């Protein structure tokens, strides 16, 4: 295995384009190293992107949004008070991945590119409307987070392309987000179901909503039907019932060692309700 440490994204992209065999980018390494250990993948070329300037920065943009460096570990996001105050759901989604130790290394970008349907940070990013910059040998482009994973373990990135920045939109007024997952223990598990909700209110009424579901389909889902059930409502009981129904209806899960089709479908509805309530409380400024 060749280990390379490019100093720029352009260099990283051209190294990846020119590499033969299996190429992986190394940010936090919490997936790549596990795959190497389990003999699932041993890359021929490993490109460590942590030597590129600015990859661990969390920067407030002119529009009030945020740019997160691709090698920023979850622990640094959690310690960033302003980011957490504006986007608690995104920060929580990231924070739920693995242990404190894993948080010292794992990144939003890695979680997205690992393309697991059960990735915890991805539903939160999708609900928040996160976009990423994809850099490649031929320049860069902006892509919505939900368009990166295309199947379990597969992304829409082509050879030589890598994510060079994560963009979280401006929070704006009267908004709130949340992410919840269901796991059998309290920590250290892969999500059996995950749900992200991002809302904006006008008074008590929901005017904008994005609802996402994880681990219930081959990729994380952005479910417009769920959003539609609560937009225009005050998240009353009837709206919550419709939301649960829509969430369960959107599921297309599998039965595996972590959960059954039936269980995932049911719990997706429960989680959608619980997550929406938290996001709603936050949008109203009533809870943190």
């Amino acid at each position: 295995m060749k280990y390379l440490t490019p100093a720029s994204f352009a260099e990283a992209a051209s190294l990846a384009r020119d590499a033969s065999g299996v190429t992986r980018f190394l940010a936090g390494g919490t997936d790549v190293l596990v795959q190497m250990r389990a003999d699932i993948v041993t890359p021929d070329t490993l490109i460590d992107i942590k030597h590129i300037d600015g990859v661990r920065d969390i920067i407030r943009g002119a529009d009030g949004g945020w740019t997160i460096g691709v090698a920023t570990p979850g622990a640094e996001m959690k310690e960033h008070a302003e980011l957490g105050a504006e986007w608690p759901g995104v920060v929580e989604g990231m924070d739920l991945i693995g242990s404190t130790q894993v948080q010292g290394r794992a990144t939003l970008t890695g979680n997205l590119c690992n393309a697991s349907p059960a990735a915890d940070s991805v539903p939160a990013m999708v609900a928040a409307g996160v976009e990423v910059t994809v850099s490649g040998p031929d320049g860069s482009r902006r892509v919505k987070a939900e368009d990166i994973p295309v199947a379990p373990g597969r992304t829409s990135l082509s050879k030589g392309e890598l994510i060079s920045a994560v963009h979280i939109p401006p929070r704006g007024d009267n908004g709130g987000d949340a992410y919840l997952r269901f796991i059998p223990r309290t920590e250290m598990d892969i999500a059996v179901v995950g749900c992200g909700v991002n809302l904006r209110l006008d008074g008590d009424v929901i005017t904008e909503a994005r609802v996402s579901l994880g681990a219930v389909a081959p990729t994380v889902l952005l479910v417009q039907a769920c959003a539609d059930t609560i937009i225009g409502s005050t998240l009353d009981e009837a709206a919550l019932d419709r939301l649960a129904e829509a969430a369960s209806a959107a599921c297309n899960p599998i039965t595996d060692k972590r959960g059954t089709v039936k269980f995932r479908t049911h719990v997706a509805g429960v989680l959608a309700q619980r997550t929406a309530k938290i996001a709603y409380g936050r949008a109203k400024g009533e809870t943190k």
Partner: protein
Amino acid sequence: MALDEYKPQSGDAELENKELKYVGTTPDRPDGLDKVTGKARFGADLSLPGMLFGAIVRSPHAHARIVKIDASKAEALDGVKAVVTRADFATGLEGEYGFVLENVMAGEKALYDGHAVAAVAATSALIARDAAKLVEVEYEVLPHVTDVDKAMAEGAPVINAAYADASVPEGMHPNVVRHHESGHGDVEAGFAEADLIVEDTYVTEAAHQGYIEPNACVAQMGSDGKGELWVCTQGHWYVQKHCAALLGMETAQLRVTASEIGGGFGGKTTVFQEPVALALSRKASRPVKLALQRSEVLRATGPTASASMDIKIGMKKDGTITAAEGTFRLQGGAFPGAPMEFSAMCAFACYDLANVRQVGWDVVSNRPKQAAYRAPGAPMAAFAVESVIDTACNKLGLDPLEVRLKNAAHDGTKASWGPRYDQIGMVATLEAAKAHPHYSAPLEPGQGRGVASGFWFNHGGETSVSLSLSEDGTCQVSVGTPDIGGSRASMALMAAEVLGIPYENIRVTIADTATLGYNDVSHGSRVTYASGLATIKAARAAVEKLCQRAAAKWGIEEDAVKWEDGCAVPSGANAGDFDPLPLAEITATMGSTGGPISGHFEATPEGAGVSFGTHIVDAEVDQETGATKIVRYTVVQDAGKAIHPAYVEGQYQGGAAQGIGWALNEEYVYGEDGRLQNTVFLDYRIPVASDLPMIDAVIVEVPNPGHPYGVRGVGETGIVPPLAAIANAVSNAAGVRLKSLPMNPPKILEALEDQAGDA
């Protein structure tokens, strides 16, 4: 504790009535400093000059004939020094040695996913792993079965037609390999007297011991036929005997040293990679380190048996149990040995029953060979029996602790498994549980409380201890039972008690196989009892010599000297008037007064005292998701005597935590292809810190007459009640009876739905 080893208590009365000065205190453990500074050396922590690294090639199939093994590509890899297969081990082994060899390295067939088929040694761990991938094994895949009930059913693939012993009645499937039946009275007559009969089937999945340190060893074999082995094990004499047999060498030529051990819980009472490392070392003529990866530990070592059990209990309206009957079908992997007779014998052992009958079946399947796991066989039986008792209590509107008290075994009770109990603590633990504030504390909405009791035999086993005094009056004690939870502290306390010298002046070492007599494994909750008894007797032997030296010095009769508080003192009116002679003054001149002073003791003590425990659990069930949270937990258990109470509490708390994992989330998940699906800790879900509450530990002390200070042993009983106690709490919280472990969220939700459907 091996299946053929249990003997009912028949030991001499040993209990002495004496005020204890050291025993019962909680000094710092002697190995504490090493363990908090990273200096303690565990199985994989030793390196030797010229050492190679080993890796094992494992079957990806649950059941397959091994057609051909071609290691030429592996052997050609730069850095590879040896490849071994079954051909490199002894032939003609029979019985348990034969099973162990077959498990350690497959012969004609791979019998489960992960079964070792070859191994390599190379100059680095990476090269060894690369080489293992280059070993080409041709398999003829055979049909497989991994479920106990399916393995017994007609048409199930036969694991080995020659396994079944004479106990199995004719007409059973060849996968049914052993049968047990015991009990007394007339159960049919007893059921006829009952006002209520509850009859149900319960199932449990296999759980792994889950020790955090993967099995590991360093082996060194020379062309002179001598060998050295460093290994994390619960019993290095067992390792010595088995490795020697499997390699076809003489036992005494193999010296085995027990490293510090990172947990065992029964799982390290046998051998897995040790004989393989020795075979690699013999072939390469270099030392070999072989440390398993976690996935290998889960696929190919341990776990406990899975079980399917039918229980029938008859009860009168006042709670009296009129009859009890149980059938226990245990699957212990691809070899005979599932602890079904322990399930059967422990099932009703807590109670004084006129009519009781229990039946056990040992069933083989395409899973790894089960290894002992803390009170092997007992927890699953308690789960089934105590759940049925709880069901009966609920139906009759009776308090579950009162019903247990009403039926509790007491001194003199004829046990369900045969003997009459001596002095026992079943009633005392129930009374202590009833009096504990936990039992009367109010519950929050959504919560349920469960109680359950459990029993374990405890064990004696072959034991040797050697103790020697130094000129400066300090003492060294060599014991042969690896310290898996603080036993060196307990040994030092007991030696201090006899010798009357400070705890700090005693150093306890786990001796290797070359420097002490034979010792049975650290299992069966036997260490504090048996090695403790041996330490006390070895110390007494030294004291006798100390008194002789004092008598000689004073010129009086030996029996006119007694030992008090670390000194020889004249005893009796005619002994004369001499100042107490401290131990250090006697040892200072021992070289010229008769020679070195030591004491030793070798025996197979048979006075282990049975023990009982009762647990109280509060659980909260999320009715929408089926998630369970354990909100409060209390362990009450009879220790006989707690030598070092803090480590006794630790055993109770650890047993409860393992029980919580087994009850709620731990399980072996096999796919349709017979492969284990959850081979890492991410998916083999043992409890993490945030899953658990503080665990209150209540030590009851009803002395064991078979030990000088009353020790019963505490390692195992603590895992017997939790499965049932948690099942009772969850069932009471959810309002529906859970009959299958683990009670994971999908299963609880399913049960809630089924109940809603029934209503």
